[in-house]
């Protein structure tokens, strides 16, 4: 799914997949930190956004 999104022009860093157990609090924090850093590094997303106006 990530591959097809990238094929359509969505940056790979916007979509993340992870498996975290409810007992893995530290892994959760690490993954979320990494995701926010990588998404913040990109410009604001304009693709696949619905304009309601």
């Amino acid at each position, binding site marked *: 799914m990530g591959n*097809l999104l990238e*094929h359509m*022009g969505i*940056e790979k860093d916007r979509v993340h*997949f992870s498996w975290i157990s409810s007992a893995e609090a530290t892994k959760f924090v690490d993954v979320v930190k990494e995701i926010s850093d990588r998404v913040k590094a990109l410009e604001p997303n304009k693709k696949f956004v619905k304009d309601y106006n």
Partner: protein
Amino acid sequence: MDTCIKKIRELSADLLEKGEVEKVIGFAKGTIPMATSPIAIQSKQDVEKLVFNSTCGLNLANYASGQKGKIAIIAKGCDSRNIVTHIVENQIQRDQIYIIGVPCSGMVDKHKIAKLFEDEIIDFSEDGDTLIVSSFLKTLTLKKQDYLKGNCLYCTHKNPVLHDVMAADPVEEQVLENPFPDVDLIEALDLDAKWQYFENLTKNCIRCYACRNACPLCYCPTCFVDESSPQWVGKGQNKTDVNTFHFLRAFHCAGRCTDCGACVEACPMGINVRDFTRKLNKDSLELFGWEAGLDVTKRPPLDAYSPDDPDDFIK
């Protein structure tokens, strides 16, 4: 293909006469030139209605499921692969279907031919590899090879993979060095150009869902686009909704699509909706060594787990 249709009619008449099948699903002449429509023949007298030529681009496997009693079906290479997929997905039992296999030399792209004419096409005939197409203003003699549908150009399964009887001798399969040159072209673009490419591709989409209806894979009783509670995707012409529909439709076909091209054949706006599914077919082949509909004993990759499955996308 003339000898082939004689054989198809003979076989169908025989099956119906002996009562071995309730009906034969095949192609009939359409109401306009260069068009054929699916037909279910129930009596021997009607077999003359069956035709088979280079305009039979729809996929008859779409009409195979949900039938009562045993049926016979005319199957090109791609139709037979979708019948295999139907059997694997329990949409039909193998003993419920009698497959009349037809080796296929490719179907023609009607949009490509229509572009050669300023006015309406009024006649279409073919003789081997030559097509003769006429409009009111002119008659053109064309080489079939130059006007094949996109999926037929890269087809490596022209002969039925599963059949009970063949209507003609198998044709030679082509061996392609690169089966996905069209996907490579899009992959070579940068991200914004890719996005622009797909925005342009779907800009004429009228959300008629002909692509979905023609697709043998789309057999859900209620499609996600038709659901209203919850409503997964907007139903209007908003371009984000249009792209969401195409993206999700394609993804529902991941690892199942046989690239039969029925979606493109059915599209009234001439959109090459295969551009979405082709990428998934390429991934299936590269990541899982999988081509859909070749073997009734194998489960599709997204339906089975193996410790060797690629997992570098997950953290």
